């Protein structure tokens, strides 16, 4: 692994390669039209909402389980003392 300082030539070489990678990428015309219609009609499946819902369900289940375990422990402790 080289730890020497970067020269202007090193930087220029890396920048040229990174620039090449960007290329002339462009979306297909058919994609542009189809997606515009789908977005405006709300037909795109975005997992953002479902992820939030899933996170809520998981949190609720975890909280319920913790509450149940705490109740059982509390009752067991009371019985032993009683």
């Amino acid at each position, binding site marked *: *692994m*080289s*730890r020497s300082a*970067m020269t202007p030539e*090193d*930087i220029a070489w*890396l*920048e040229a*390669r*990174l*620039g*090449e*990678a*960007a*290329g*002339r*990428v*462009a*979306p*297909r*015309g058919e*994609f*542009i039209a189809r*997606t*515009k219609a*789908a*977005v*405006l009609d*709300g037909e*795109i*499946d*975005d*997992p*953002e909402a479902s*992820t939030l819902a899933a996170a809520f369900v998981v949190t609720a289940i975890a909280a319920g389980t913790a509450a149940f375990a705490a109740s059982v422990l509390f009752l067991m402790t009371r019985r032993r003392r009683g």
Partner: protein
Amino acid sequence: MLQDAQGDSSLSSPASIGDPRDDKALARATRDEPALFGTLYERHVATIYRYVYYRVGNHDDTEDLTARVFMRALKHIGSYDDRGVPFTAWLYRIAHNVVANFHRDNGRHPMVSLDDIEPRETHHHDDADTRIDARADRERLTRAYHKLPEERQQLLALKFSQQLQNAEVGQIMRRSEGAIKSLYHRTLEQLRELMEADR
């Protein structure tokens, strides 16, 4: 990969981004009239597509994620706060989140592809060894790029897929221009070290 690239060239130029004040006005108007979002979409779809492609490296995922970016933007257009933040910066932040979620859900496995892209220059005068070396360099660059921390990948994507200046990148990444300049230099150093280690 480039051979697959099609589309309206007038949409693919960064110059087509348009007047940011107009973007803000349109974004505000979209809250009452969602159909106006179509204009914002047409104006920015090519630049967002190029950014996403740089991050994920294949057209199939890029199309899915680009659509998701605009779906989410339309959904949250009411929360767009235009105080000092250009609409494009807001859109890039959404794109960044969508791509980050995608990489997280896919275990951060590199989708590869920068190495699938042939460089713009032709090599009529290069010999076979030179072409093989260039190909190997691109492959090492791709692997190194995907090993970079998330924010450094984002920085390179914004600078090279969009040709944005440090100040513009700073607006999107919520950093000062100086901090971006410093981060950029460290990123190039890390990239070079990763490539050296991959020899």
